[in-house]
């Protein structure tokens, strides 16, 4: 995640707030997704019991990750696959590029994967002279547009069908109609061809199963199936925490992931891949490689205060209930992972409390994310702790520092406090309208632009009290 936006969070958010089309699309998406999720949660008996079970499974796995990683590695090898480890994004990129070169790959198809976004894989492979095609419809759209995902489940939600038709028409050389079935048909045709001719398929990993050495891929489109069935080489990239211990655990996380993400009982396709094809098999890959990526995760693991962030199953439910995400959309976060979970893991993965440390402020701390999380990650608590961490490290805005410095100075003693309140009551006079400070004071603008700041009372409480006592 070396790419860092130029603008700070406040300015990225301000920019996003002006994009009415994007905001409308985001509102529609999150309403639909969270509404469907609520329905799905009601339909599955004992939702809270499933959530607790998910939490227990994720907690147990993460707390014993060394054991399960070793077990997974052993079982992938037993099934005939190869396993590689990358401590950093750079190592992962280099390793995957070398693997592709070893197989003399020219054409690569990818199915949706956040971890490959995180390590900026595509540009590395393209720089090595390979063609890389994203096959998830939304990712394909974004690749053509040269943009990044704005939602973890529906990555191209910020684009409308007219913009998509324009992109597709450019590829096609003639006009593609801006209606959904025509656009889908066009993508099917173009991408089917890419699948048929791909040398290497690259996938992410929803869940690996340690006891069986399986990789589970969850899609609605079927692109992960195509990416693993047709090319002779498959490379799966996974963040090191994406494991469950047993096959039976899989039913729990697979029950929660689609329901929490889109409200589906199950996605159209759940593929469980066990290494390369076996003697006699006709389709499926000849070579299977698993690349396990750390890239900052071991740092989160070591910090018990934040370890629960690794319990995430990447469903996006926290995005869909977040009042901040609803207003600013995914790009304003500026990071690969947005929404509440992204605001937690980005500063930690990047080990940067200054720039990325701003992200935990993209939250109202309303805790809707915590209640939506199927793994019961206490997101708002983690967001709050991160703010605290940032402040105690001394990374606070000059204005904020000044304001709280004054607060400390005047509020320490009753005499100075009394003076301050009197002064405020008199000094604010030209700014007050109907009992609120609404004027755009340069120093207060960030507050008054988005909130009502009540004016200080004419008579202070102390004065009124004194009068009453008399």
């Amino acid at each position, binding site marked *: 995640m070396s790419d860092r936006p130029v603008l700070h969070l406040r300015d990225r958010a301000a920019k996003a707030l002006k994009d009415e089309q994007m905001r409308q699309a985001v509102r529609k998406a999150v309403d639909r997704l969270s509404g469907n999720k609520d329905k799905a949660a009601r339909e599955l008996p004992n939702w809270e019991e499933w959530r607790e079970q998910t939490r227990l499974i994720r907690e147990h796995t993460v707390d014993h990750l060394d*054991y399960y990683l070793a077990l997974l590695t052993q079982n992938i090898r037993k099934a005939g696959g190869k396993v590689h480890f990358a401590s950093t994004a750079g190592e992962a990129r280099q390793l995957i590029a070398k693997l592709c070169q070893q197989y003399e790959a020219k054409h690569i198809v990818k199915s949706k994967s956040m971890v490959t976004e995180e390590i900026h894989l595509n540009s590395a492979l393209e720089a090595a002279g390979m063609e890389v095609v994203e096959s998830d419809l939304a990712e394909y759209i974004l690749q053509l547009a040269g943009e990044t995902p704005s939602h973890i489940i529906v990555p191209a939600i910020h684009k409308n069908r007219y913009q998509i038709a324009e992109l597709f028409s450019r590829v096609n050389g003639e006009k593609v109609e801006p209606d959904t079935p025509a656009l889908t048909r066009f993508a099917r045709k173009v991408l089917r061809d890419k699948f048929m001719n791909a040398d290497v398929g690259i996938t992410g990993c929803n869940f690996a199963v340690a006891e069986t050495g399986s990789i589970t891929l969850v899609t609605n489109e079927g692109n992960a199936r195509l990416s693993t069935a047709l090319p002779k080489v498959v490379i799966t990239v996974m963040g090191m925490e994406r494991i469950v211990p047993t096959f039976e655990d899989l039913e729990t996380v697979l029950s929660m992931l689609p329901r929490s993400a889109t409200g589906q009982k199950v996605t159209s396709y759940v593929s469980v891949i066990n290494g390369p094809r076996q003697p006699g098999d006709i389709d499926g890959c000849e070579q299977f490689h698993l690349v396990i990526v750390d890239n900052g995760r071991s740092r989160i693991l070591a910090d018990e205060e934040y370890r629960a962030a690794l319990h995430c199953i990447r469903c996006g439910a926290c995005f869909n209930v977040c009042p901040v995400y609803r207003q600013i959309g995914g790009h304003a976060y500026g990071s690969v992972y947005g929404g509440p979970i992204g605001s937690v893991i980005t500063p930690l993965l990047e080990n940067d409390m200054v720039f990325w440390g701003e992200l935990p402020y993209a939250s109202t701390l309303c805790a809707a994310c915590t209640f939506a999380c199927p793994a019961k990650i206490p997101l708002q608590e983690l967001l709050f702790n991160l703010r605290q961490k940032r402040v105690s490290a001394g990374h606070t805005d000059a204005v904020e520092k000044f304001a709280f410095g004054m607060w400390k100075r005047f509020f320490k003693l009753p005499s100075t406090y009394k003076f301050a309140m009197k002064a405020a009551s008199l000094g604010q006079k030209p700014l007050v309208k109907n009992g609120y400070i609404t004027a755009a004071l340069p120093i207060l603008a960030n507050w008054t632009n988005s909130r009502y700041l009540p004016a200080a009372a004419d008579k202070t409480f102390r004065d009124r009290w004194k009068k009453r006592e008399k």
Partner: protein
Amino acid sequence: MTDIQEDLSQENMFLQTVANALGRKTVLAELPERQEAGPPAFWREQKFEEDQPLALFKSNLEALTGRVAIVRNGAEATNQIKLWLKVLNAKSAILWDHAKLREYIDSTRLGVKTAFWNRDTSRRELIELAEQADVGITWVNYAIGYTGTVALFNGENSGRSVSLLPPTHIAVMNRSDIVPTMSTVMRILLERRGQGALPSAIDFITGPSRTSDIEMDLSIGVHGPFRMWAVVIDD
């Protein structure tokens, strides 16, 4: 070109880092004890009535635009598929060369050009045949009532392409192989693992290929089949 080998020293260092992060000096070598595993207890222990799995399977798959035909024997199953092929105006079909499918379905009576997925034909040709075929026909190892899902095990004569590349997928099954939940299939797979390796791929398929990536508009048939229909043989 040098061969990229697995780097064992890198692997040891990586696992050591993880162990250290968890406060351990060395990588945990023994299976850790756990309190809870798998789905919640109530889910594992629930009882289903005899007719429930099939009824659930039918209603769940139909809710996803699937069609489910329940027939009594192979001749009826063959007729049903023949009828559907006609409705689809299909010219060709590719079938798994599966013993059960051969037993129940008379491919000579389907009225279309048929090909079988087996080693008599090369990989390249088979994939192209599947790509060109109007319909792919598979035999279902297990179906799951609760979600309307079919589970297909990859094997020598049961390639993944048959359920994936043609625009229509017809899955044929015995009624007795419809189980209520995924847990049952998982348990069977685990028992299988005791006897040997799992198949190289297990595909759980629930309805057609779909997407809502464009303006949250549901669109069917992105990469996989537009139609996923099922024939249940109740004999």
